[in-house]
């Protein structure tokens, strides 16, 4: 597999050098592998820290900046950051109003963030995202994975923190976004982890994996490749079966690329998704189309729906200035 890299072991460290060079308004702690907004910590503002394994870019480092995250802790590719990194991020954004951890629901991420929170000398509240309807949720499993909704939580909670809300208020709005959001994804190809050098799973040319996560793990089922209209249905149906999206102030519809699918295909998929939502009587009030939470070079996409209300609409529309999301600022 061809990649734009030097040595596989240096991918993360060298990418962080690029982030620092490209974005002078960010500060990069290379020892701890944490990306900070340049003016962190902001006195009196709730600090927002997220992080996770690398390979999902722009998540999370691309969402550091005014109106979104204060810091992102970057683990090795597909490997949770360790508590030392998360602790460094937490200390670096603590402006005296407490720190919110936004954690995707993966065993490793949850444990490492938990250990960091236990070591932190400031008030920390964690919100765990778990929006992936492909995973069966029960008392006997680790629950659903955190995927697309994480981007929306970071934007909306970021706006809430920027407007001066308290830690518990910011945590509440983050939990509300997670509770009202659902996602489902599919893969046309596997992805190739730089250190491994070969695809994580074999997927024949005429097959797709439905119900994938963001780490190249296999999905819920493998089915024959189908037209986009049918693939859109495979993603939208399980989401609508899982949660009520009609009424209220409409939804935010988010079609996300997994890293290896061109934007033209994502817009084509958005058209299909939008058509299906219209047929189901669901009003789309906001949209997001692009590759925002990826799985390296995997081809495919995910759909996330978020049920909106007046508060979430206002916070979504609020100014944001990060390398990957930027409007009104």
């Amino acid at each position: 597999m061809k990649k734009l890299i030097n040595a596989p072991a240096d991918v993360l460290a060298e990418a962080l050098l690029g982030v620092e060079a490209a974005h002078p308004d960010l500060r990069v702690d290379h020892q701890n592998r944490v990306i900070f907004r340049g003016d962190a910590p902001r006195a009196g503002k709730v600090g927002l820290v997220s992080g996770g394994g690398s390979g999902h870019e722009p998540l999370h480092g691309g969402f550091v900046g005014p109106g979104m995250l204060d810091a992102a802790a970057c683990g090795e590719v597909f490997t949770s950051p360790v508590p030392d990194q998360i602790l460094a991020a937490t200390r670096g954004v603590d402006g005296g109003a407490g720190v919110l951890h936004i954690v995707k629901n993966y065993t490793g991420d949850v444990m490492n963030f938990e250990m960091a929170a236990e070591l932190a000398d400031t008030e920390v509240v964690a919100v765990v995202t778990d929006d992936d309807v492909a995973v069966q949720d029960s008392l006997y499993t680790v629950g659903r994975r955190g995927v697309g909704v994480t981007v929306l939580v970071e934007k909306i909670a970021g706006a809430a923190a920027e407007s001066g809300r308290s830690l518990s208020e910011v945590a509440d709005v983050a939990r509300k976004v997670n509770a009202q959001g659902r996602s489902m994804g599919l893969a046309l190809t596997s992805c190739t982890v730089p250190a491994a050098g070969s695809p994580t799973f074999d997927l024949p040319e005429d097959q797709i994996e439905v119900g994938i996560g963001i780490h190249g793990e296999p999905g819920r089922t493998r089915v024959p490749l189908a037209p986009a209209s049918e693939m859109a249905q495979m993603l939208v149906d399980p989401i609508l079966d899982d949660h009520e999206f009609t009424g209220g102030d409409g939804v935010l519809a988010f079609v996300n690329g997994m890293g290896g699918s061109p934007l033209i295909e994502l817009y084509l998929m958005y058209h299909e998704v939008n058509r299906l939502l219209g047929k189901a009587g669901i009003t789309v009030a906001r949209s997001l189309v692009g590759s925002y939470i990826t799985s390296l070079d995997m081809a495919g996409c995910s759909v996330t729906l978020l049920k909106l209300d007046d508060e979430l609409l206002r916070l979504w529309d609020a100014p944001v200035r990060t390398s990957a999301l930027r409007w009104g600022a």
Partner: protein
Amino acid sequence: MSAVVDAGAIRSWLGLFAEEVGSHVDLLTQLDAAIGDADHGTNLDRGMKAVSGALATADAEPGVLLKTTGMTLVSTVGGASGPLYGTFFLRMAGSASDADSLDPDAFAAALRAGLEGVVARGRAQAGDKTMFDALAPACDALDEALASGATFDDALRAASVAADAGRDATTPMLARKGRASYLGERSVGHQDPGATSAALLVATAARALSTGASP
């Protein structure tokens, strides 16, 4: 009855475990690729190499060596294995406290404390298809053998046999923890990588701590 686990014994155990992890990197990673995310071997190897480095300069009693091991693993492994193995050794260290050496019962108690740390951190139960399924039978076998008057060597061997059996028993299990649980039924038929490395940990304890050669 002079079997004791002193700092030298702890060092040889951890050194041997680091070696065994190093020579099983591919196996652990392949097992993880089948039901997880293909990094267990490389992550644990990175961590145990760091432990070897940290212990090379540490000159202290067993508790301090175990604590250094735990802290190093937490800081270098990542994923779920880092917090789980890290907590295991940190709790062992807590149990060993500042003793110069551990007698067989004290070592068994420390191992049990480590297991309880794994449970507290990972909330795993028997049959979830995790490292617990190799460690818990090992602790039980060690306790039972010592209670029935077996020598430390025989008790350690019994623990290793139990850990291997526990590891093998994970193959038909349906995963209920970690990334493997996302696969549901598709996790059945694969040996758990965490139980595999945990069985190596117990096997190396049996080899390194047995008093066979010494009086």
